[in-house]
């Protein structure tokens, strides 16, 4: 499953199996099709062994009977061929380059990068490989880390660099690379009690300026909205390997709840690798509907889209516990949401002096 020493032959073998299956169906006079697990909230199941949410058994069919299916199958063939070539030529490409490569596929070209990214994920799911095994990598990550944590990164020239994420970096912190596996990043030592993953850059900077990492012996990680795979993987490694507890500190709106879910429970989109990305012990200390009331925070009115998102979360199995149910329902009742920076109502230090200590105490972290 992981990006081990010699993944290439396995990935290629798995991809060839897909082409073989399509070929055999055509040869047998059948309508070619592929079966894939449905990537919907209705088809994610809690895995008791790993404590994360993974795809269930429901499958969908991608068949050449319909235009969309036929086009996707043809794109799949093109992508298999392209990946095969990259592996053979020892090249790699970004997901965006992959999308532009399809410009040369005539009618089979992708309509959007979203489409090509999803197909790459489909291939991961079928082959149980990672897109890195297919020589595909994301664009950029650049999520930032500040805290007393020392790592060793192998740079592009193969040189090993030792970096302390507090002393060896500027105010914008250590930038997480897209590959955070142990061949690239080794976790050496730390002097911290917990990881705090922060949704917005503004709040990350506030905590940095207020010296929260030092005062509370914490490692600050900027999530940059919905966190990239590498950010989530990095957090999970810190949690597993360094035994550091993780908290997520987000805005108080439906989208922020989903950010926490993808860090802690596993995202629907990447449920095939939840085991590898999710940190099941992560605690939510972001703004809740109750916080809005208790701290009397400045708010915005929920938009129609917000309300739809909250309602969808009520039927999302990942939010099916008493805490989330109460908070989501309260938010739907009050129809109010708040940003984490709304805490500035009580001064710039309120978040670090009052709010976070209170929430961290409740969560049993300090």
């Amino acid at each position: 499953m992981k990006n081990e020493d010699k993944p290439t032959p396995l990935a290629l073998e798995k991809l060839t199996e897909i082409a073989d299956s399509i070929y055999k169906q055509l040869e047998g006079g059948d309508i070619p099709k592929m079966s894939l697990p449905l990537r919907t909230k209705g088809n994610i199941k809690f895995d008791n062994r790993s404590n994360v949410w993974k795809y269930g058994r429901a499958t969908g069919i991608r068949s050449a009977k319909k235009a969309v299916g036929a086009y996707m199958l043809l794109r799949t063939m093109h992508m298999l061929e392209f990946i095969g070539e990259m592996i053979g030529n020892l090249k790699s490409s970004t997901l965006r380059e992959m999308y532009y490569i399809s410009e040369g596929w005539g009618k089979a070209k992708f309509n959007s990068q979203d489409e090509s990214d999803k197909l790459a994920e489909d291939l991961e799911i079928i082959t149980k490989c990672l897109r890195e095994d297919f020589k595909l990598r994301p664009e950029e990550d650049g999520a930032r880390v500040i805290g007393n944590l020392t790592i060793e990164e192998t740079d592009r020239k193969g040189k090993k660099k030792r970096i302390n994420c507090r002393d060896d970096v500027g105010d914008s912190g250590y930038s997480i690379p897209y590959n955070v596996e142990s061949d690239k990043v080794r976790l050496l030592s730390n002097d911290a009690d917990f990881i705090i993953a922060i949704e917005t850059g503004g709040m990350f900077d506030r905590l940095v300026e207020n010296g929260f990492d030092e005062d509370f012996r914490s490692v600050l990680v900027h999530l940059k909205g919905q966190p990239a795979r590498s950010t989530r993987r990095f957090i999970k490694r810190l949690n597993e390997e360094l035994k550091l507890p993780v908290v997520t500190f987000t805005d108080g709106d439906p989208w922020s709840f989903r950010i926490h879910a993808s860090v802690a429970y596993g995202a629907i989109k990447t449920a095939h690798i939840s085991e590898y990305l999710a940190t099941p012990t992560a605690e939510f200390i972001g703004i809740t509907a109750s916080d809005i009331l208790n701290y009397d925070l400045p708010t915005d009115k929920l938009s129609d889209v917000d309300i739809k998102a909250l309602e969808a979360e009520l039927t999302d199995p990942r939010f099916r516990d008493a805490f989330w149910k109460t908070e989501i329902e309260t938010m739907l009742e009050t129809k109010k949401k708040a940003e984490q920076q709304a805490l500035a109502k009580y001064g710039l230090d309120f978040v670090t002096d009052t709010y976070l200590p209170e929430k961290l105490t409740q969560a049993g972290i300090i």
Partner: protein
Amino acid sequence: MATIAEELARKQREISVSEFFERNRQILGFDSTVKALIVAIKEAVDNSLDACEEASVLPEISVTISKVDQNEYRVSVRDNGPGVVRAQMPNVFGRLLYGSRFHAIRQSRGQQGIGISAVVMYSQITTGKATRIRSKIAESDVSNDIELTIDTKKNRPSVVKDDHFIWEEGGKRVDHGTLIEFSLAARYVTGRQSVMEYLRSTAVVNPHATISYTDPEGRTYTFQRATETLPPKAVEVKPHPYGLEIGTLINMLAYTQEKKLSLFLRNEFSRISDRVAKEICEKAMVSADRRPKDVSLQQAKAILDAIGGTKIMAPQTDCLSPIGESLIKRGLKNVLGSLRPEFYAQPVTRPPSVYSGNPYQVEAGVVYGGELASDQPVAIMRYANRVPLLYQQGACAITQAISSIDWRRYGLEQRGGTGIPYGPAVILVHVLSTKLPFTSESKEAIAPIPQIMEEIDLALRACARNLKSHLNKKETKSKAAVKFDIVTEILPKIAEKSSKILQRPVPDISRTITKIMNVVFIEDGVDYDAKKKVAKASVRVRNYTSRKQELKVHALVPPAELDRGSIYPEPEEVSEDGKIMWNLKKLQPLEVVECTFSLKSMERDDYSENEVYISDINPATVIGADPLPGDWGIKTFELEEAEVEEADYDEEESELSEE
């Protein structure tokens, strides 16, 4: 000493018709200055069209509006009609309820003879100016040029200027024609209810007329005629006794030249024979020999009752002159062509019918698509005896009939299935009759009489079904195009790529193609032979499934033009009303059968789209034709439930982008 009654009687004086209308101008449609302009032009144009048609002249009408000041406009309407003799000019234009049409029972634009003189009067009341009339008849060398006003108290025209002149237009002597020029208090607007729209609408139903219009800014627009053929002249008929009112009967009894009641009945009414006249007299218990003048009110009522209780032949309907299906289409194309509509539903002219003794007839047409606005209510073009109706849309039988149809079934949007539908469409309805029931004297809306509503409904549904058939065809064609794309473009590439990746030979995909298509595919088309004036239609049926197929193919065609000898292959049945049915037995996989037929003496565009239906086969396996409509009275195939399929992966994925 005078009694109070005598006192009152002295104060009562006769109110002339003109005076009455002066005080109640809204009755004639002059209730706003915007409307006044349109109504005035409408009256003049109606007069011109009627005059031209009576004289069998192809109408050439020009309308010019110029601005006098903020509140006053000057209008001139000129035609190439027969002209009016000098002696009649004052009466025709300056006397209310005077006209040649008032006593005639037939279909005509103006009915009460109120129109043009009301315009003269409105002009006089609002501007104090006289109306100028110029007219020339072919027999005379000089033209008359008069100016007249109306003495409203006496309902008499008074000529204030009387002159002759030699009429030339563009350096050419005018042979015959009339020009009316008047000033009026008015407001000029553009938009849905405007002079332009009125003239455009007029041009649609008068494809034999050339109408040009010069607006106050001096821009001239011309609607060229689309046909050189004049509509058949409306025939004058005597009134039919059904629907006769007591007042009319008494008047007719008083003025008739007949000396005997039975002769009066036979000669003054249509469809009354000697036998029927006698039967009426007997039933009314009035002597057949009684002098009509001596019939008492009591007896007149008895005669009316007797008429109601006597079986009388329906009135003759040949006095109606519909525009006709072909000319409606051409008129619509002529005027709407610039919007490039994608489809003109085959217009429908219903057979004539009768309400309250009055023959009437309904015509309808629907235009769809192109650059017609798709986010607005459909445009409704209402016509009464070839005259566009612009006002009181909601009160009109036409609008009500349209609103009560569930257009969603025919491919237009409509909230809740009632009301005016939305979509890129124009709906045209023309009601014609010797006596149209209007909701008011201003003749702006047709009264919703149940029989008329029913005929409108039938005409509209026929057009609507035609539209739906077109839309279905369009949809199935695009569905078929998708399948063809899969099997001809995508699938071969999948086969090629997979074999290239595996370095194996390209597999044969023909069996897969049949499985993907799995339809009986029907394509139809029409070829027009301009020389022979023949439209040749073909319906190709191809069995794209892996099994033998059996089905019946039906085509609905205009029966009068169908060349029965041209139908190939031998049809199982051809009905009088133009339904052809082929029974295709044992169509082998990949076999093609082409069914053809020809229509004679057709103009181009008369028949441009086939109406093809199928039966005796599961409609789900057919692309390109609809199952037979239920009301054709033939048992149709029950729709099978769609097979249960596994979830489509690419349709279930929508939530993914949220995280």
